[in-house]
């Protein structure tokens, strides 16, 4: 008995396979950008409200979302706080003095931006995994 092996629709399948990364990149880009905006919005809400005495770039004003070049098949966004005192607010200070020279001691780390980013990143990973699973992939380890 003759055995015939014939592939049907392979060119179409290969074409779709080649287009898959580009399509996924576009969809994933939306998810990543949305997550970055969510982090930025939550961080702005979590920072203290500026007062009449606030000068320069406030912690809320300093929150920026940047789109990072991650190549043709990658997507990335970065949330930064550009306020000059943002890092000290996040990580704490050792010692500060007033303009009159009075020692005001150290400020503890406030941990605002990092915990928000950690939580939102976990949600984003799950959403990206859902996207891949919709396309037939199996995602493990989340």
């Amino acid at each position, binding site marked *: 008995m003759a055995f015939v092996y014939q592939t049907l629709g392979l060119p179409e399948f290969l074409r779709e396979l080649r287009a898959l990364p580009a399509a996924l990149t576009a969809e994933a880009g939306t998810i990543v950008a949305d997550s970055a905006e969510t982090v930025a919005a939550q961080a702005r809400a979590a920072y203290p409200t500026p007062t009449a005495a606030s000068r320069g770039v406030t912690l809320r004003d300093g929150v920026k979302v940047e789109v990072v070049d991650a190549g043709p098949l990658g997507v990335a966004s970065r949330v930064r706080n550009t306020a000059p005192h943002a890092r000290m607010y996040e*990580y*704490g*200070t*050792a010692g500060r003095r007033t303009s009159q020279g009075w*020692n005001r*001691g*150290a400020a503890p*780390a406030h941990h605002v931006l990092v915990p928000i980013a*950690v939580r939102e990143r976990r949600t984003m990973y799950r959403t990206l995994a859902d996207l891949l699973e919709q396309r037939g992939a199996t995602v493990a380890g989340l």
Partner: protein
Amino acid sequence: MPDSSAIDAGLVALLQADAQLASLMPDGVYMDIAPPGLQRYVIVSLVIAEDRATFEGRAIEDCLYLVKAVMLTTSGATGIKEAAARIDALLEDRPVVADGYHWMGGYREERVRYVEIDETDSTIRWQHRGGRYRVQMTPTPTSTLTTKG
């Protein structure tokens, strides 16, 4: 369930017990904030703690800590680099002992390094160096399976 603060205490105790770190940062190891007047010390603070639950209760406590050496540099003293390296050696893949918990894992997620300059006197500079360390602990099981017979 065990007291989650035991994890904080275990981490601080691990750092306090190290003679090499103590020689580099002789003013001690503190949670969140150090007493005034110190010049060379280590600060530990909890960034975020997330619990992973199972039907029988909390299974994993996943904690992210900021651990950094802090040093006043007007005196010309050095050691911040060595202190950060020692913190890393003590926490990277090294067990934390805490009452009621088993250690699961520990690793650095990100390096932290910055200089704090006094606004009034720019000769006063504080070096901060360390990292964000993830510590994963699981509560020690308190129930045991028994068989009838």
